[in-house]
């Protein structure tokens, strides 16, 4: 009994890979996956090198400034030039699910000046490459692998029927077992592929230690299962092979490209972000106006946020760095509300996309994967928040030095606060569970549909095999259209 099944499995594999097309496709998926994983590793290396360059830049700049300015120079003057690195170390997963990483920077270098003008710096990305999209392992697993699944399952039953081999096979084995074996053979092949690709990915980039890789792997497995369920639902129907192929490719286009693109367009239209441009203007105006205002006015506004300094009286006859940085603070104050509104819009977009993506399981999987990899919009907002709090810590650290007009040799530069990277926003389960549920539910629905129809088609086939002349299969492909 077991040996029959094994023989059938081997026979099925031989038939699957005889055609050549499936072999080529499977090899292509593996090769692209391995390449993507290697590229992800390179990218992580580049991000780390860039962070190291920022760190090195800070050190050499500090050394240069301390060496060049005479010892009487106030620390405030050096701080005007000094840029502090605020590099977010990438999660290992982001090597495999790069998300929006291409358009974002996780490696800001900030000065003590007004912050809003420094937060949104763009990386040196080539927009043409960014427009083409990233070939990361996530793309191979979530976008290309489903096509392979479609390619090897669309004629699961209809192919046998059209070749006329179905009735022959049924002489010895019941058709339900035959479908089971044929499906099993394909599941084993794809499972092998998924496991090897995940292993290659893990080897290439290494793993984060907090359960996120586990959730990511689970999502990939569920996503693969969803496509299998969908393909089975279609392939066990009574349509012709070509009709199955069209339906499945149509489903792939709809779920992978069309639905996400429609949702994305709706998202931009529903949640406009005009504040982006406004806040730059406001900050610039807020800071520069201060030069033409009475100094006390700027200081009063500064003391609203830092009352601990409110007994300081601003000198009128000479320039003071404390006043200068207070003017910069005024720039941030002027942009504060707009900046808040801007972040709110982005957070609303992110939440909206997360919610509606649950209706499109493959999109939900992609968004969840990016979330687990901290390469999504939410992670960028969290990074900006971390930079904000770093800027704040720098300000409070240097305020005593600025108000005391301390010369720079008296500053202990080794005690300058260092950047604390943003922690992942959501717990792994919170990031992965909704998408996992959406995928599981959709898979079950598809299987349920397949079951209903399969029973019908099997009985029809079985009936067909008993009657002397079976009903001719419908060849939709045969119409000259």
């Amino acid at each position: 009994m077991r040996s029959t099944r094994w023989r059938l499995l081997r026979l099925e594999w031989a038939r699957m890979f005889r055609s050549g097309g499936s072999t080529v496709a499977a090899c292509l998926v593996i090769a692209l996956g391995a390449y993507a994983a290697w590229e992800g590793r390179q990218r992580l290396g580049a991000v780390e090198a860039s962070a190291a360059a920022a760190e090195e830049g800070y050190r050499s700049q500090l050394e240069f400034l301390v060496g060049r300015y005479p010892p009487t120079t106030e620390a405030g003057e050096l701080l005007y030039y000094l840029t502090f690195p605020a590099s977010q170390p990438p999660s290992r997963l982001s090597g495999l699910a790069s998300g929006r990483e291409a358009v974002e920077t996780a490696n800001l270098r900030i000065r003590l000046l007004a912050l809003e003008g420094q937060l949104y710096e763009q990386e040196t990305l080539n927009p043409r490459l960014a427009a083409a999209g990233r070939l990361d392992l996530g793309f191979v697993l979530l976008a290309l692998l489903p096509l392979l699944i479609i390619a090897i399952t669309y004629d699961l039953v209809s192919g046998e029927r059209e070749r006329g081999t179905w009735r022959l096979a049924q002489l010895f084995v019941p058709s339900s077992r035959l479908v089971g074996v044929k499906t099993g053979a394909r599941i084993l092949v794809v499972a092998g592929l998924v496991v090897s690709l995940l292993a290659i990915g893990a080897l290439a980039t290494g793993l984060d230690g907090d359960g996120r890789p586990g959730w990511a792997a689970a999502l990939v497995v569920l996503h693969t299962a969803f496509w299998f369920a969908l393909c089975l639902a279609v392939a066990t129907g009574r349509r012709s092979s070509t009709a199955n192929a069209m339906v499945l490719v149509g489903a792939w286009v709809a779920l992978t490209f069309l639905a996400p693109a429609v949702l994305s367009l709706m998202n931009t239209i529903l949640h406009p972000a005009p504040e982006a441009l406004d806040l730059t203007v406001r900050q610039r105006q807020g800071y520069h106006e201060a030069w033409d205002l009475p100094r006390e006015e700027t200081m009063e506004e500064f003391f609203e946020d830092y009352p601990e300094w409110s007994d300081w009286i601003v000198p009128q006859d000479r320039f003071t760095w404390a006043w200068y940085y207070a003017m910069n603070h005024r720039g941030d104050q002027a942009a504060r509300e707009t900046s808040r509104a801007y972040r709110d819009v982005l957070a609303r977009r992110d939440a909206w996309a997360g919610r509606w993506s649950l209706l499109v399981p493959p999109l939900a999987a992609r968004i969840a994967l990016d979330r687990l990899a901290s390469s999504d919009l939410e992670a960028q907002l969290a990074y900006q928040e971390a930079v904000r709090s770093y800027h704040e810590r720098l300000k409070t650290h240097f305020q005593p030095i600025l108000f005391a007009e301390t010369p720079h040799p008296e500053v202990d530069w080794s005690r300058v606060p260092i950047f604390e990277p943003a922690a992942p926003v959501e717990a792994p389960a919170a990031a992965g569970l909704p998408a996992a549920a959406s995928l599981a539910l959709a898979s079950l629905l598809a299987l349920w549909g397949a079951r209903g129809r399969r029973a019908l088609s099997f009985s029809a086939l079985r009936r067909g095999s008993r009657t002397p002349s079976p009903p001719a299969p419908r060849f939709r492909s045969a119409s000259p259209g």
Partner: protein
Amino acid sequence: MKNILRIARRQIHSILETRSTILLLVLVAALGIVSGLGARHHAVREAEARLEQQSLVERQWLEQPGRHPHRVIHYGFLLFREEAPLAFFDPGVSPWAGTALYLEGHRQNSASFGDARHATSAASFGRLTPAAVLGLLAPLLIIVAGFASVSGEREQGTLPLLLAQGATPGQIVAGKSLGIGAAAAAAALPVGLVTAAFMAFGGAEAPSWLRVGALVATYGAYLAGWVLVTVWISSRRKSSGAALAHLVALWVVLGVGAPRLAASVAAGLHPEPSRAELTAQVQAAERQVGESHNPDDPFFAALRDEYLTRYQVSSVEELPVNWRGLVSREGEAATSRIHEEHQLELLGVHQRQNRVIGWFGLLAPHLAMRDLSMSAAGTGPEAVEAFRAQAEAHRYDRIQRLNDLHIHQIHLENDRAQRLSREEWERFPEFRLEPPSLRQALADRPQALAGLGLWMLVPLLGLALGRERLSRVSEPASRKEPAA
């Protein structure tokens, strides 16, 4: 000719009979309209926001109180990149290029706030634009409408019948292509009409019909290539099923795989420095020059000696011009040169990357089409670079005008206490973006033009060479079939 039209009619008839094809045709047409309306809505709103901010910045500049020119150098100016009128049709690279650019003295900022930065991961597999509908979905429609065009006739045994009635293989192939092409045109027409309507009645600017024409030619050639390839593959495969499988595989490889692979290879071959690395390089180079805010710097000491000799005076106080203004001007010239050198180096890396993509386009027509489409729409990399370069020139001009005012209208003694009168602000020229010419943009893309040409030529050649085979392949099939 009559035969060709008869075959074309037959093909159209069979397309109209298949419900799934009709459904797809309507879907492509509808998505074309929806994407056009949606993208246009978004583009108009963005353009309004940019215009509003730009005029606000302009007003703020004019309403400045009397200020010291160096104060205004730091105040600077803001530019908001205008989108090309056809950006709604094909946004090209502009979502990934920044929008707001702060021009100030001593630094060259990069434009920030690209559209892509405000998008969620949902957009990472593509955006819904008319260009995407025509470039990705219309080929699928062509495949579905045509995969069985010749193989189906063969499977049904009607091919020899057609041949026997006097249609030559060439006429059959031409008729089939015409019929499928008509379906593709029907699907593309609504997008075209929507775009043309927006161009004619929607914009304040005069529409560039030349650019619209280039777009029509690009998509016409690209989709014609798909029609020819579809008929070709259909004529060469034994079964319609095999033809469909091969065509879909081709679509995946060209439309989905190739762009990403090309981008990845390009980035791998020509890695670009990160912003942090670039900034560190610029800073290191600036230290060689000196710092214009520090007049005791060796670079500026040499400059001082030069001016003292030129005016035959012994101290900077005796110079007839403002020494601090001179320092600022020369410092700006030196640092701008350094920034520009590094910027051009980065641009060189990007251009080398783009050339890799261009070479890929020779084999992957979707890439070639993308390159031509965004250039025709005025949203290609050259448009972004034109804005950057012109904005930098404008920045440099504005800053050096201010430095000249500092040199000539402000006295060195009690320098910082002096102010220019407000009328000065009105004498600054406005920024006018000169978009790169269409002709130049297309001339810079020989690979893309060749790629699109090859895309039509190869299937044409294949069809021409396989003409005889078309009838031969059909013979065994015809023998099996009973006389119809």
